[in-house]
């Protein structure tokens, strides 16, 4: 079956610019795709069919008049239902905000409007983004497009599912412990958590102010680069925003010499996940390392990170999330899903000294990484220690220990390090299980070196079309 929604932004943008296709035609196909896949995926909380079609008509008019804005003009996209949208319900996946209709847009939603992208809906997620399975107690679980019995990962589960299924061309996610990269990995798409401060968080409902990041989930590396280019930029209204010049990341993907791993030094740290990876993930990641070596990269084994950062980093999220939710926990705690409530309430027992020392450890960790990056160009790891598992699974194995994935941070063991140190990290597909479930790996770069991350990822993606071009079963 051929559909415009199977195409990447890189393929669609020239068709829109040359008027070979119309935004109206594209948005209509997207809405039809949503209608077809939603009974299976439950990837959306709200679908904005009327406003999306109205915006598509405007975009068509602009393009016909020769006022083409760029690669996102006329492209249908979705946003995790954590991004405030003016006049459109924004629930955070919670009963507490079931009737919340903001009066303003999140800064990034405004940026998408300026770029001409068309919002088609708000994606389902793990409640308040505090979880990694996207089994939502209020709106139902998100289902994985590769096998609807499986979780999508989370918390941006609906975002990744919709991109993989073609019910949006790209989606806006958030990442506090891995919430962009985990579902990107489980759903076989690309997700990047940019450097802390690179993209505004203004108007995005917080989970943990010093750990939260916003970023895109897309079908391909080029698409993620185009989307991040439109998202990024300083925002005086976001206390965490950093005034560093932004780039057109797709421009960095044109030069074939730059899109290469030859001569790079690549860090890995197998001791960090020794004994924890499921064999199928370990095998896929070993093949990634072999590919880098075969193509001229030098692989350097590191002794950092350590498990210390993983344990201590959770203190920051526990304390900050509790501070944000404290009043609602007291006033209407019963409205939270049970596993979220359990995790949030724990934050009240973190003493101030522990919080401050966790932030001090973060500074130490950043200093260590800065020294490491004097000797490496990028750092690689698997994205998650296992592939997706069935919705409702009571326990999964974390080494020799059986743990509940809803209250244990097992799925973010490899991703939360990037939120702790604030570096840019991308997840992209690197293989599949025998049961056709995607596996991902991560590329981490220096702060504000997103271009390097994109170049390395693009080199890998171009060399592996058998992985990057594979479509999920919903297209059959």
């Amino acid at each position, binding site marked *: 079956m051929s559909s415009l929604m199977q195409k990447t932004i890189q393929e669609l943008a020239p068709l829109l610019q040359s008027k070979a296709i119309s935004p109206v035609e594209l948005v209509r196909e997207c809405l039809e795709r949503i209608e077809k896949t939603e009974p299976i995926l439950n990837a959306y909380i709200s679908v904005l069919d009327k406003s999306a079609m109205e915006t598509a008509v405007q975009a068509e008019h602009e393009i016909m008049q020769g006022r083409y804005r760029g690669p996102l003009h006329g492209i249908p996209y979705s946003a995790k239902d954590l991004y405030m949208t003016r006049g459109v319900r924004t629930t955070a996946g919670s009963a507490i905000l079931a009737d919340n209709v903001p009066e303003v847009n999140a800064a990034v939603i405004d940026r998408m409007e300026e770029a001409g992208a068309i919002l088609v809906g708000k994606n389902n997620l793990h409640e308040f983004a505090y979880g990694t399975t996207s089994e939502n107690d209020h709106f139902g679980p998100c289902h994985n497009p590769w096998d609807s019995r499986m979780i999508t990962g989370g918390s941006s589960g609906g975002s990744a599912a919709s991109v993989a299924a073609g019910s949006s061309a790209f989606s806006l996610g958030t990442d506090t412990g891995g919430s962009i990269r985990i579902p990107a990995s489980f759903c076989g798409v690309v997700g990047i958590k940019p*450097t*802390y*401060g690179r993209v505004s968080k203004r108007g995005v409902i917080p989970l943990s*102010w*010093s750990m939260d990041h916003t970023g895109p989930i897309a079908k391909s590396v080029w698409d993620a680069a185009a989307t991040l280019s439109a998202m990024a930029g300083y925002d005086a209204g976001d*206390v*965490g925003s*950093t*005034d*560093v010049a932004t*780039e057109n990341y797709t421009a*960095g993907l044109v030069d074939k010499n730059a899109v290469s791993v030859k001569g790079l030094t690549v860090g890995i740290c197998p001791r960090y996940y020794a004994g924890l990876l499921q064999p199928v993930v370990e095998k896929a990641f070993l093949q990634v390392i072999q590919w880098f070596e075969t193509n001229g990269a030098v692989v350097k084994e590191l002794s950092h990170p350590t498990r*210390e950062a993983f*344990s*201590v980093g*959770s*203190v920051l999220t*526990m304390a900050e999330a509790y501070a944000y939710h*404290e009043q609602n*926990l*007291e006033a209407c*705690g*019963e409205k939270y899903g*049970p596993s979220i*409530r*359990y995790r949030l*309430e*724990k934050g*009240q*027992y*973190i*003493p101030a000294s*522990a919080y*401050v*020392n*966790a*932030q*001090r*450890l*973060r*500074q*130490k960790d*950043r200093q260590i990484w*800065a020294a490491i*990056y004097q000797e490496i*160009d990028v750092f690689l790891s698997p994205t998650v220690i296992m592939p997706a598992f069935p919705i409702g699974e009571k326990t999964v194995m974390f080494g020799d220990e059986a743990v509940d994935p809803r209250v244990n941070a097992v799925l973010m063991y490899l991703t939360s390090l990037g939120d702790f140190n*604030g*570096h840019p990290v991308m997840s992209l597909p690197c293989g599949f299980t025998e049961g056709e479930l995607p596996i991902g790996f991560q590329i981490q*770069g*220096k*702060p*504000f*070196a*997103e*271009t*390097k991350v994109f170049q390395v990822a693009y080199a890998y993606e171009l060399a592996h079309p058998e992985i990057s071009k594979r479509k999920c079963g919903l297209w059959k």
Partner: protein
Amino acid sequence: MEIGTLRSMTTELCSRTVNSAIEAHLPQYAVEVADVLAAVRAAALTFPADLAPASVFSLKSEPSNK
């Protein structure tokens, strides 16, 4: 960690009510919080005195390799 300590923290330090949801989980919280606080204390033993918390939170001064 004593469960009674957590109960007092809820009521006296946080001005909260020990509702049934909290009460049911106090034994688990006592174990999990003790573990994570021990991890923080162990990490803090390695800190030099002049180690300040990360600024909230700029990486601007650090070099990039674009």
